[in-house]
C-alpha cells in the first residue's frame, strides 16, 4: 500500500510537468497583453511598449519558460504582473475561503444527499421517491447563480438572518465564519446534492436487488441495518467516485458562487487573472488545482479499499 502511494505521488510529477508546459504554452499563444491592460485605455502605444519591456514580456518563449520552470523547482511561483505580490501570497490569501466553501459544501452535500438517495431507493415508486427525484432534477436544472440570488434575497435582504456577501476568516470565530458560508454552501451544494442523491439512489436500487440483501431480510435484520450496513457499504464505491469527480464541479462552481457572494477565493482570483492576462497567477492557480485534483483522485483510490476489501494495491 505504502509503495503504491509513493508510486502514485511520484507519478504526479510528469503529470504536473505536462500541465505546466500546456498552461504556459496556451497562455503564450492566447490573445491578450497584460501590458496593455496595465497601461489602461488612455495610454499610448509607446507607454504600453515601455511597460511590456519592463515586464520582460518581449523576450522569447523559451527564455521565459525556462526561467519560470527554474523558479517553480525552487518553490517560487513568481510575482503577479499586476499587483506585484508573490503568487504564493495571493494564493495563500485566497485558499482559506475556497477550501472552507468546498469543505462545507461537501459536508452538506454528503449529509443531505446520501440519506435522500437511500430513502428514495428504499421507498422506490412512492411520493418520497418522486419528491427526491424532482428535487434532483431541480438541483441540476436551476443554475447556481439563480439559487444564490434567491437565497440572498430571502435570507439576507428580506429576513436579514444572514449576510449578503463577504467572508470572515475562521480565526475570527466559528459563527462569523459559518454565517458567511451558509448561503454560498447551500447554493453551490444544490447541484452536488442532486448528483450524489441520484447516484446513491441508482446504486442502492441495484444493491437492494441482490441476493444477500434478501438473505439479510430473511435473517430478520432491521431495515436500518440492511440499508446502511449491508447495502450502502456495497454501494459506496460508485458514490465515492462521484464525490471525487464532483470536486472538479465544485472548483468550477466556486467561481460563480464566489462572485455572487463576493467571497475572496481562488475562483475569483482565477477569473480576475484570466481577464487581466496575469500569467504568473493563472499558471500558479492552475498548477495548484491540478495538484489538488491529482491528490483527490489518489485519496479516492485509497478510500475504495475501506469499502471493498477485494481492492488491493
Amino acid at each position, binding site marked *: 500500500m505504502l509503495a503504491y502511494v509513493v508510486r502514485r505521488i511520484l507519478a504526479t510529477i510528469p503529470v504536473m510537468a505536462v500541465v505546466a508546459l500546456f498552461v504556459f504554452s496556451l497562455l503564450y499563444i492566447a*490573445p*491578450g*497583453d497584460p501590458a*496593455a*491592460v*496595465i*497601461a*489602461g*485605455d*488612455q*495610454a*499610448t*502605444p*509607446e*507607454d*504600453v511598449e*515601455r*511597460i511590456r*519591456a*519592463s515586464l520582460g514580456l518581449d523576450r522569447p518563449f523559451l527564455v521565459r519558460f525556462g526561467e519560470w520552470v527554474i523558479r517553480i523547482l525552487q518553490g517560487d511561483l513568481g510575482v*503577479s504582473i*499586476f*499587483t*506585484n*505580490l508573490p503568487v504564493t501570497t*495571493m494564493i495563500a*490569501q*485566497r485558499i482559506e475561503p475556497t477550501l472552507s466553501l468546498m469543505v462545507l459544501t461537501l459536508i452538506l452535500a454528503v449529509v443531505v444527499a446520501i440519506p435522500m438517495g437511500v430513502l428514495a431507493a428504499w421507498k422506490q415508486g412512492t411520493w418520497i421517491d418522486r419528491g427526491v427525484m424532482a428535487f434532483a432534477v431541480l438541483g441540476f436544472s436551476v443554475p447556481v447563480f*439563480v439559487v444564490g*440570488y*434567491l437565497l*440572498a*434575497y*430571502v*435570507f*439576507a*435582504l*428580506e*429576513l*436579514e*438572518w*444572514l*449576510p*449578503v*456577501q*463577504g*467572508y470572515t476568516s475562521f480565526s475570527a470565530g466559528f459563527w462569523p465564519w459559518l454565517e458567511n458560508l451558509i448561503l454560498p454552501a447551500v447554493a453551490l451544494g444544490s447541484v452536488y446534492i442532486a448528483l450524489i442523491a441520484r447516484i446513491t439512489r441508482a446504486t442502492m436500487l441495484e444493491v437492494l436487488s441482490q441476493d444477500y440483501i434478501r438473505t439479510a431480510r430473511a435473517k430478520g435484520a432491521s431495515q436500518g441495518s440492511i440499508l446502511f450496513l449491508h447495502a450502502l457499504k456495497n454501494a459506496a464505491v460508485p458514490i465515492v467516485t462521484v464525490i471525487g469527480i464532483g470536486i472538479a464541479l465544485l472548483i468550477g462552481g466556486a467561481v460563480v458562487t464566489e*462572485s*455572487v*457572494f*463576493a467571497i*475572496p477565493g481562488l475562483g*475569483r*482570483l482565477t477569473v*480576475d487573472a*484570466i*481577464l*487581466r*492576462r496575469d500569467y504568473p497567477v493563472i499558471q500558479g492557480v492552475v498548477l495548484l488545482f491540478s495538484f489538488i485534483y491529482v491528490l483527490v483522485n489518489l485519496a479516492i483510490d485509497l478510500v475504495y479499499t475501506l469499502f471493498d476489501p477485494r481492492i488491493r494495491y
Partner: protein
Amino acid sequence: MFRRDFLAGAAAAGAAGLPRFAIGQPTGSQVVRFIPHADLGILDPIVTTAYVTRIHGFLVYDTLYGVDAEFRPQPQMVEGHRIEEDGRRWVLTLREGLRFHDGERVLARDCVASIRRWAGRHPLGQELNARLAELSAPDDRTILIRLHRPYALLAEALGSPVTPCCFIMPERLAQTDSARPVGEIIGSGPFRFLAGERVQGSRFVYARNADYVPREGGEPSWTAGPKRVHVERVEWHIMPDPATAAGALQGGEVDWWETPTADLLPVLRRNRNIVVALPNPTGMMAWGRFNHLHPPFDNQRIRRALMGAINQADYMTAVTGTDRSLWRDGVGFFPPETPFASDAGLEVLRGPRDLDRVRREIEAAGYRGERVVLLGTTDVPTLAALSHVGHDMLRRAGLNVEFVATDWGTVVARRASREPPERGGWSMFFTFWTGLDNINPGVNQPIRGNGRDGWWGWATSERLEALRARWFDADDLAAQQAIAREMQAIAFEEAPTLPLGQYFQTTAHRRAITEVQQGLPVFWSLRKSG
C-alpha cells in the same frame, strides 16, 4: 416582467411573515465601506491610467494643485507661486507642515522627482517637457521651473485630474521608472494605505492620516480646497457582481456603491435608506474609434459619411436605458456645459438618419466591400452595448462587418496591432472616457491627429495638431474656446473618432453618509452618522 423582478417577487412571497434580524454594521461606526467600480489591480497611479487607481491616488497622495468645480486650478500642496520673466520662470512654494506617511517631511526635491516621473505620461506633462529648461529644488520648500517658452497652463497641468495625475511621492520612490510600479504606497494625502490589510481582489483599507494638514480657508470643491477628514477608516470591498453589490448596500453591509448599474437603479431608489445621485456633471463620453492605417477607414470620406449614420440616442439608450436625465445626445467632442463645448459641426448629428444616403456616400467615397473588423467587447456592459449598436450601424451603412466578440483584455491587445485587418489587425473599436479626460484640447485624445505617436487608431491630422499647439499658447479663455470650436468643426469633417454621446454615471450611498463631494469619488469632507 424582468427575471430579477420575478425572482424577487417569488422569493418575497415565501419570506413574508418570518422574523427579521439586523445584519448591517454596528451603529456609530466611523468606517466607510465603499464598493469601487473595479478591482484595484495597480496601486501606482502613474503606471496606469485606470480610473480606479486615480480614486485610490486621491486617498493616499496629494497634488500640488487641485481643480475646483469651475475647472480652475487652485493651490493645494503649494502655498502659492510666482511667475517671472514673462512666464518663463515659475517659482512654487510648498506649504509648511506637509509630511509623508512614513513621517518624512515633503521636500521640494520629492516634488521635482514626482513631476519628472509624471510628465512623460500625461498629455499636459508632455507639453511641459517640450518647453522645460530647468526643473529643480533650490531649497526644501521651493520648486523652480524654467521654461524655453511660457506655459500658462502649468498650474492646470500639475493639478489636472486627468489620469495619470501628478501625485507627489517621496523622491526615493518617484525615481522609479514610470513603466514600473513603485514598491511602496507612501503619499502625503489625507489617508494612509494599510498594505498589511490588503486582500487583492477583495479588500483595500485606508486609515485617516492624523498628520495631514488641510489647507486653511476656502471650501472643498472637487480636488481643491481643504481636505478635512471626518471618518477614521475607509474600506474598499470589491464586488464584481452588481446584484450582490446592490444587496450589500440595501442590507447596510456597505455604505457607498460607486457605480450602480442602470437596471438596479429602480430598486435602489425605492429604498428609503439609500440616496442615488449624479456626482460628476462631466459624465462619461462614448467613442467609436477607427483604425486610420488601413482601408476602409484610412479614407476620410468614408469616416465622414458614417457621421450621418450615428444616432447617439440609440447608443445612450443601450448603455443607460430610457431615462433621459441620465444621458445626452447631440454631443460633440467635448463634454456639454464645460468650457470648450460648442455646437460647431453638430448639425451632422441632427435630423432624421438617412442610411440610404450614407450608403451612397460610402460607395461614392470608393468603398469596395473591404472587410471591417469590429472589436466588440463583451465583458464590460457599457462597451458591449456600444459595440452591438455600432455593429448594427455599420451593417446598415452597407459595410462588410466582421464582429469579433471578445473580452476587453483581448481588445486592448489586438488594438495594438498595426497589421491590416486580414492579418490580425482591426478596423474599429468602441470605448468610453470620463468627461474630465476629454475636457479640453490639451488632454482630449479622440480629437488628436498625432498619427503613429498617438492613441490607438493613429489618426493623422496636421490641422488638428496645429490648432492644439496654438491652444496651449492662446492668450485667454475666449481665444482657447475659439480654437476648440474650430477643432471640433474639423473633427466632424475629418472624423478621427465618432462621438456617440454623453451619459451620467450615478452613485448610490446610504443616507447615513452625507456631504459626498461632487466630481471624483473622494473621501474627505464626507461624514457618517448613526
